């Protein structure tokens, strides 16, 4: 690691990033110049689309490519520049930098539900009540629809959703005589039975994943984050959290979880060769299995998420994204028009046909959707299971207005539970403390 050119370049690149980030940071006046009180009617949006203009969209969702093409055919005077600017955190960093710099901000951006509060708080995205988005009440399933709300304000339109379900490798389950678990108790027993029968096979993999943890606590009834405007509280000491840590700590202690980080090469390989026998994950997973785990085609199936008590029907959301109009956009009306087309109009159908898991009730309840057979899943009509899960998402969950940061430092504290230095409950407490400290530094009232 000498002072090579490579390193100097890296250094220069990060200096430039700092440079770009800081430009105009002293001017925080925001873009509230246009009166927000006047609402634009649907007819007004339609007129703007007919008049035409150019908008820029930052998104990594692959199904949008076709939607953009169809949209431009329908409204020939509108030009949509669809740009993939990294996915997830990479895109948020670029977006935050652009917003700070005050230039190069897209009109529309894909933002995951957990990250939306952070952008809403920073006044980076527009309240869609200006366009009467409230009238879309009932168009979307309850989970995603509440995720784009902050009080009365609506900061995005749901693009997809991720109600959780149990994906499992039927071949492995059958081979070792394991019944599909319907409760977490059965799941833990299955984990032990499988790993005892084959020490090279695990029920699932986990080496500490913030998104998974929060979704599991969500289902178990824990509500660690309370958010009221700029006042937040973090408390992982509630009964719901402890239900989950109790179960999961048992699996960690008995070494029943494959120590393979999600989305790594080893993870894909393990999903393909039976090493990792199941996944509790969002309903958007099937296309990822099809493209990333070709080796196991026909072997995987979907079942409802295991429950905390037999007979219950409670799920939670895992992942999923919205589209949001930026405050800095000069073409908000056209941006909203495209966004509505992509999320509730023809675009929603097109994206569902391409394999996205819809957040709209119309697409979700359509017979064609429910009866679709997945060749990868052995011909199973998987959407029947997944659509049911979408209607069972528990309410009342909040993410922190700085969840992007919190998730980023998750492994610093909770990771120790996986390497033998601590346990989950203590790890979560330390994580909560780190989040609290950051919140205070950022000017939040933390209780």
């Amino acid at each position, binding site marked *: *690691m000498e002072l090579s050119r490579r390193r100097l370049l*890296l250094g220069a690149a990060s200096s430039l*990033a700092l440079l770009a980030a800081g430009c105009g940071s002293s001017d925080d006046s925001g873009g509230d110049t246009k009166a927000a009180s006047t609402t634009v009617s649907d007819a007004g949006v339609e007129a703007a689309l007919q008049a035409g203009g150019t908008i820029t969209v930052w998104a990594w969702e692959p199904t949008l490519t076709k939607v953009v093409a169809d949209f431009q055919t329908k409204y020939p005077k509108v030009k949509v520049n669809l740009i993939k600017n990294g996915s997830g955190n990479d895109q948020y960093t670029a977006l935050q930098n652009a917003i700070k710099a005050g230039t190069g901000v897209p009109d529309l951006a894909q933002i995951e539900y957990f990250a939306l509060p952070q952008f809403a708080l920073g006044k980076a995205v527009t309240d869609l009540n200006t366009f009467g988005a409230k009238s879309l009440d009932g168009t979307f399933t309850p989970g995603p629809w509440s995720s784009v709300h902050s009080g009365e304000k609506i900061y995005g339109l749901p693009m997809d959703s991720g109600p959780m379900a149990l994906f499992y490798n039927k071949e492995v389950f059958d081979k070792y005589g394991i019944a599909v678990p319907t409760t977490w108790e059965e799941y833990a027993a299955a984990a032990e039975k499988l790993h005892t029968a084959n020490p090279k096979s695990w029920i699932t993999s986990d080496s500490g994943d913030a998104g998974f943890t929060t979704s599991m606590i969500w289902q178990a009834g824990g509500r660690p984050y309370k958010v009221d405007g700029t006042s937040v509280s973090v408390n992982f000491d509630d009964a719901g959290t402890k239900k989950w840590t109790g179960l999961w700590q048992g699996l960690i202690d008995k070494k029943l979880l494959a120590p393979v980080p999600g989305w790594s090469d080893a993870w894909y390989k393990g999903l393909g060769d039976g090493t990792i026998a199941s996944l509790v994950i969002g309903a958007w997973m099937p296309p990822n299995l099809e493209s990333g785990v070709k080796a196991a085609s026909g072997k995987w199936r979907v079942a409802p998420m295991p429950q905390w008590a037999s007979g219950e029907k409670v799920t939670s959301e895992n992942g999923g994204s919205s589209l949001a109009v930026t405050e800095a956009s000069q073409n908000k009306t056209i941006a909203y028009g495209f966004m509505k087309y992509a999320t509730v109009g023809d675009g929603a159908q097109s994206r569902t046909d391409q394999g996205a898991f819809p957040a709209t009730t119309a697409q979700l309840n359509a017979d064609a959707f429910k009866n679709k057979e997945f060749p990868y899943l052995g011909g199973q009509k998987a959407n029947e299971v997944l659509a049911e899960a979408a209607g069972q998402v528990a309410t009342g969950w909040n993410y922190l207005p700085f969840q992007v940061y919190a998730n980023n430092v998750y492994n610093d504290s909770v990771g120790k539970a996986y390497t033998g230095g601590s346990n989950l409950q203590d790890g979560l407490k330390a994580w909560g403390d780190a989040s609290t400290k950051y919140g205070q530094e950022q000017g939040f009232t933390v209780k």
Partner: protein
Amino acid sequence: MTRRSWIGWQFVAPFLAVFALVFLAPIAYSLYLSLYRTRLIGGTSFVGLENYSKAVEDPQFWSAAGRVSLFLVVQVPIMLVLALLVALAIDSGRLYGSSFFRISIFLPYAVPAVVATLMWGFMYGSQFGLISYLNDWFGITLPDPLAPNLVLAAIGNITTWEFVGYNMIILYAALRVVDPSLYEAAAIDGAGQFRIIRAIKLPALRGPLLIATLFSIIGSFQLFTEPVVLRTIAPNAILTYFTPNYYAWQLSVGGQQFNYSATVAVVMGLLTMLVAYLVQARAVRKAV
């Protein structure tokens, strides 16, 4: 009265312009940033040296600085001794196929650090990598190189592999310019190979070794690429404050704390300068 000539300045002006733009300006801007604080709620305000007092008391920053110091103290001597041995072996002229030997030792330096780390990361894998195959073949359980207590040594191994050849070239080049008449004189005086190494070759290497050491100190303190790449497969071993540079990067991209990130970068820059200066001063004093 003589007129001052500006011809010289005109010649260096293109360099100075680029130097100011890509070197001085970012440093000045980092210093400027480090005096402010931007919050999600409350905006930007001037805070003077508050960020610096925070850095001095920041256990995560010192943990990172301590980790690279340990790395420096252990890995750099190992790497330089290996480079020295290889350079002496090639220079001895007794090595069969020495040019092949030289190029193959140097070759890892030509592999980009990202690629090298990915490659080693695969070998380190205890689930699917080389380690797991070794475990299966021999029915043993090797320690996991990516466990929190071993990951620094694993990174040291990667960087040693990468940079032994580079340091070897620096030392070997210095050995090539030693006047052959010195060796002839030594041979006539009846000196053996080890005597020649001690009396002629090592003194000739003093300067190049100092340069190699300084580069290695700077390189150690700037450790960044390897942790970034390894974090995807060892998220619980590579913390967000694993090394100072990685910490500064995480602060800005993960936490949007640009001001504090700039502060950490400035403090680490000063620390690096201080350590490099002390080493150089000590070496120069010894040489006199």
